[in-house]
């Protein structure tokens, strides 16, 4: 059986990749994908901890299903926003999007 640490390490690695992507990608779509990675890292943790530490019921799995569903909804909203941004600003690169300052 694979030890729990491997799962947490994988999850931590995915989380870091996600954070790194969200901070450094210039493209908005890239940032959205990175956020999905962060959510998946959380899902791995939920499932792994439920399997190794949890009770008989599949609470972690159910929770991760919720996360997947909500993430799907969230990315729909995100894509809509991206289209709206593109229509207004004619760009998807974040260094052109400084509306909060101007």
């Amino acid at each position: 059986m694979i030890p729990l640490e491997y799962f947490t390490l994988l999850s931590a690695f995915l989380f870091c990749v996600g954070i790194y992507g969200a901070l450094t990608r210039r493209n908005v779509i890239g940032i959205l994908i990175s956020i999905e990675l962060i959510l998946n890292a959380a899902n791995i943790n939920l499932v792994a901890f439920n399997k190794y530490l949890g009770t008989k019921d599949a609470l972690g799995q159910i929770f991760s299903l919720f996360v997947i569903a909500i993430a799907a909804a969230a990315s729909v909203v995100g894509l809509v926003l991206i289209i709206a941004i593109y229509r207004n600003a004619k760009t998807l690169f974040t260094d052109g999007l400084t509306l909060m300052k101007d």
Partner: protein
Amino acid sequence: MHIAHFIPLFPFLAFVIDILIGRRLKIASAYIATGACVLSFIFSLKVYQDFSCGAGSYDLGTWLVIAGKPLNFGIIIDPLSIMMLLIVSFIGTFILIYSIGYMHDDPRFSRYFAYISLFMSSMLGLVLADNFILLLIFWEGVGLCSYLLIAFWHERPAAAAAGLKAFVTTRIGDTGFLIGILLLFFTCGTFHFTDLKSVTGPEPLLTIAAILIFMGAMGKSAQFPLHVWLPDAMEGPTAVSALIHAATMVAAGVYLVARCFPLFVAHPIALQTVAVIGGISALMAASMATVNNDIKRVLAYSTISQLGLMMLGLGLGSVSAGTFHLMTHAFFKALLFLCAGSVIHSVGIQDIQKMGGLFSKMKITGTTFCIGTLALAGVPPFAGFWSKDEILLTAWQNHHPVFLILALLTSLLTAFYMARLIFLVLFGTARSQMHPHESPMSMTIPLMVLSIFAFGAGFWGAPIKEGFIEGESHGAGMIMTISTLVSLTGLLTAYLIYVRRITLLPLSVLNSLQGLKTLLINKYYIDEIYDRVLIQPCLRLCRASFDFDSNIVDGLVNAMAFVTQYCSGVIRRSQTGLIQNYLLIQVFGVVLLLIWLLKL
């Protein structure tokens, strides 16, 4: 409500109408103002006719209660106020008629008549007021109108400056006046003129109060230390000079002293101050008039000088002499100013050295100008002779040889400068290119009417006759003869110098007089002294205060603003508007929080 209460109301109504819708009324605004003035005159005549029951005070109800003493909207009806009412409304009417012609193409035609109406209203109120506070209100009212009308052509910097000078200079006197009124109230507890006969109080205080009240009169009547504004006031329209700065407003100071006369009589030092100031002003202004070349300024100096004579008459203890001269002077000086206005209207210049030979071109103006001159010079039987004689006689009877000589010298100079004026303006040959023409009817009719009064007003002394007849007692004939001789000497000297061009004195004497002439042309350097001693230090103080304010007070505020601005400028740089930067900071924050929590 007494009938006299209506007198100041008519011009005030005319003022309200003219100031609100005058521009739409165009020439009708002048008719409204003139009509109101005529109504005031008719009512004044009615008051004069009804006057029999002796002096009376009629009030319209209590206005204020000060320290338990009621202050009423009261008017006083006595020979003095009736005389002033008649003079003001009568001369005012004719000057308004004259103004219709004189101002006919002015862009602010209706505004002019509105101001004049306000002036008439204030002036009529002033002579009717029966207490100091009411009088002071109207006193300031005429001062305001004087300012507005001197600076009427405010596009000209000289006119604007003259208006300001008149206002500030009279204000100095008015400050003294107000202090005097309050001093009188706090020592005697009264504001009413009728109570002045019986006031008693601690001695030096009442004398000081009287002198302070006289200060107000000095400012208004342009007496010696405060006389500087009147010659400059000639920047205003000439009809204004005739009405305000010759006949009525400047006489308000004389009226005030006459009105408070019981107070002055009871305090000889105050009375003597009046006489001394009057005497100095009379001689000094007359001497300045002999060298001036501006037709209106000569008349302005003459006005100061004649007002000085009135003050002298009052100061020597004779109300009738002072007020009688006030009345005759109002007629002939208004006439002279209107003549000067007619001349200026016709030729467009004011320098008498450039005029000459106008008599043949302007018969009516010329004749009336001569009548006014003879009246002012004091040639019998013109009006000025009788009233000036009263003053000379008072000086003689009260044994004041110094004042008598002063008054005689003044009349000598008066005859001289007036003769010089008409010889240079009306006779001889033209000294520059001019196209003179007689003025329109609306201007010549007032001239003719006023010249009748300038000739005959001396015989009409009705409200103040008593003192006039008593004067026949002793020395009267001698004084009359001397006065006539003095006037004729003045006229003859001017004739010899300015018409026959004879040098009366040897050249060496003339050369030594050159210094005196420079002194006179520069008006005794009084304007310069005031400038050095008062105005410049005041301006320096103002400039220092301004610098303190703009550098230190404003500097502190600006420094605080600058610090705030600088700090916010630094902090603002963290707000890049890039969401990823915010996220980065957030991540760092979480990491730091984790380290902190885990370390614990």
